[in-house]
């Protein structure tokens, strides 16, 4: 469960990222966070992965109050949340296998466990035959699937996807969204931050719309209602 209680994030007096936002996302939900540029979507994502601290309010993930999380506790939090980025953020000098294994290595997993689990996860995302390639040798869609594999490998309870289809074509976008729906079906809470109208409308799941740092709407089976 993810809880935000009256969370605000102010960068400068005249630059507000989030303004008094309260949210509750239940375990196992798939929620889309939508909004135009500057609405506060990325700020929300950064707060959830503790990349930034809120200026006010309280944030809780899975019962863990991360509002004032200490820097040395941040790696532990990130090992419990899977994160997917628009720009992939793969380690360019590591192979597909090593990129996925890295998420387990940093958590101190045993080598045998890594050699058992990583091929399984790569199979789920359909990249078992790309294990020894480097990111530069993959297409955008394949790279995003590696990122999903990396974020899944330690079986996170929450998967945070920040514009996961932003750099992909329609076909790859559909593949990635199918994967995210599948992952959600297995019980993982998925928080999808996006401004892709088609993606949100196709899902027909809960949609939270942000506007000027505030929650403008929160609809259980919503659609992308913003106009450009």
């Amino acid at each position, binding site marked *: 469960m993810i809880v935000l209680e009256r969370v605000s994030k102010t960068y400068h007096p005249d630059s507000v990222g989030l303004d008094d936002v309260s949210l509750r996302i239940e375990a196992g939900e798939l929620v889309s966070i939508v909004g135009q540029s500057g609405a506060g979507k990325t700020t929300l994502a950064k707060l959830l992965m503790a*990349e930034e601290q809120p200026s006010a309010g309280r944030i809780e993930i899975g019962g863990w109050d991360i509002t004032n999380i200490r820097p*040395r506790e941040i*790696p532990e939090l990130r090992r419990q949340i899977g994160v997917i980025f628009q720009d992939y*953020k793969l*380690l*360019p*000098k590591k192979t597909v296998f090593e990129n996925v294994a*890295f998420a387990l290595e940093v958590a*101190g997993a045993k080598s045998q466990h890594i050699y058992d689990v990583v091929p399984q996860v790569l199979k789920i995302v359909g990249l078992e035959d790309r294990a020894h390639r480097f990111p530069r040798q993959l297409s955008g869609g394949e790279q995003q699937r590696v990122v999903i594999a990396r974020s899944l490998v330690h079986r996170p309870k929450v998967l945070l996807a920040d514009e996961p289809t932003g750099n992909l074509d329609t076909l790859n976008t559909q593949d990635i969204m199918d994967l995210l729906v599948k992952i959600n079906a297995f019980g993982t809470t998925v928080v999808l931050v996006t401004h892709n109208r088609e993606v949100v409308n196709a899902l027909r799941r809960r949609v939270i719309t942000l506007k000027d740092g505030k929650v403008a709407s929160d609809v259980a089976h919503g659609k992308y209602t913003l106009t450009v």
Partner: protein
Amino acid sequence: MITAWRIFAASWKHFARNLWIGLATVFVFTVALLSVNVLIGTNVMLERVVAFFEEKIDVTVTFESGTPEALLTQARFYVQSFPQTASVQLVSPQEALDAFKERNKNNPKILEALSELSTNPLGAQLVIKAKETEDYPFLLAAVRNPQFQPFIRSSSYDDHRTAITSIEDAAKSVRLFGSGLVAVFSLFGLLAAFNAIRVAIYTQREEIAIMRLVGASSAYIRGPFVLEGVWLATLACLFTAAAVWAAIYFGEPRLQQFFSGSDTGISDFYVQNWLTLFFSQFAVMAGLSALVSWIAVGRYIRR
């Protein structure tokens, strides 16, 4: 244990996959170390040149012909008793005459004039070597005491005073400037190495940020970079040692020509001090690399 092994393995893998950055860093390290070693070698050679000239200096005190042998022996023991004295050699009148003839064997006129004389015109000589060049005036003043002064015909110190003072000044300058230059070059070398690591890590700043986002602890991120710095320093020290050895092996015979065939002192110096030189340079380079890597990586580890 498993984490330590992973950090160790990652450092080598990282080095192999960033080979060009690694080799460029090793190159900068090696150039820095070589410049310091060239200066150390030059300093050793200059010290040898100074010592070579210092060895050539002596003061010869010539006594009047017919000076009693007992007085000459007494003068010799007297001079020898000073701690400033390195050696004293008493040359008899006959030995002085033989040496004079040898020196002038290609000058028949002098030899002919000498044979006209019925007695040996040369007196005995005391050849004095001081431990330090600045001790000559003192030793000369000591031997010119009232007991020996009446029997002293001349001394060579006055003729060589300017040369001795010049050598003395040169020796002081060489030692002072040599040490200063080694210190300055060491500092420049360290700065160059420091920046080479900073640049190498700067090129990988995004990877560092990604590692953090994926859940790596600061120590787990820093570890491979710190160890890689130590490997780079090790390689640079080995390359430098090989280059210095090759330079001495091939260069010293050519340098000996400038020393009239005698030893330049460089190989002796390196043979006697290679352990200290290698490990002190390795310790400084490896320690610096590890420290700079630790600090530089920290700059790119965000929350």
